[in-house]
C-alpha cells in the first residue's frame, strides 16, 4: 500500500533539532488529477508497446509504494537522524 505520511527528525551537532511531519496522502490527492489525465496516454502506450512500454514507470511506482514501513533511526553523539514512513 502507498505510504501515507512520513516523519523526519534530525538533531545536529549543536543540539539543533529539526522535525518534519509530511502528510504524503495530501500529495497523492494533489497528484490524482494528473494521474487521471495521464491514463489515456498510458493506455495508448500499453496498447502500442505492451507491458514492456510501461515497465519502468511501473517499477518506479512499485519502489515508491513499497516504502511504507521503512524506519531509519541513527543515534550518534554528534547528531541523530530519524526517518519513518508509514
Amino acid at each position, binding site marked *: 500500500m502507498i505510504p501515507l505520511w512520513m516523519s523526519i527528525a534530525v538533531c545536529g551537532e549543536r543540539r539543533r533539532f529539526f522535525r518534519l511531519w509530511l502528510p504524503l496522502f495530501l500529495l497523492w490527492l494533489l497528484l490524482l488529477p494528473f494521474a487521471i489525465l495521464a491514463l489515456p496516454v498510458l493506455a495508448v502506450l500499453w496498447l502500442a508497446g505492451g507491458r514492456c512500454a510501461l*515497465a*519502468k514507470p511501473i*517499477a*518506479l511506482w*512499485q*519502489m515508491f*509504494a*513499497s*516504502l*511504507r*514501513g*521503512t*524506519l*531509519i*533511526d*541513527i*543515534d*550518534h*553523539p554528534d547528531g541523530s537522524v530519524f526517518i519513518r514512513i508509514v
Partner: protein
Amino acid sequence: MSENRKQILDMLAAGKITADEAERLIAALERAPGGDSAGAPTARKPLPKYLRVVVEAEDDHGADTLTKVNIRVPFQLLRAGVKIANFLPPKARTQVNEALREKGVDFDLNQIKPENLDELIEQLQDTVIDIDHDRGRAKVKIFCE
C-alpha cells in the same frame, strides 16, 4: 483415512503388529500435534516482511557514548529495487561490478533477479546474524521479521 493410519492397519492385517500395538499407535497419532491429518501439508510460516539491521557500537569519544543504528527495510522495497536494477545499462552494471571487485566484493549484479530474491527471502526466514565484536564494543544484529 490418513496415510499413517492406513499403514498401521495394513501392518495389523499383515500380522506384523498385534491389535493392542495398533491401538496404541493410532492413539499416539491422534495425540501428536496435527492429529490425524498427516497427509495434509503443514501450514507454512508467513514470509517475513522486513529486513532489520540493529547496530550498537561504542564511540571513540568514550565508553559512555554509544552509536545506535536501527534500520528496517521492507522486502517489497528490495524487490522493487531489483526490478529497477534490471533497467541499468549493461555498461553501467559492468562498471559497478568492477568497482565492487576492486573493493574485494566478488558480486555480480547480473545475477540478482526477483525470483532469486524471493528464494533468498524464504531462506532468510529463520536466519539471525548476531555479531558481538571486541567484547561488546560493537554489536551487529541482522534478522527478518
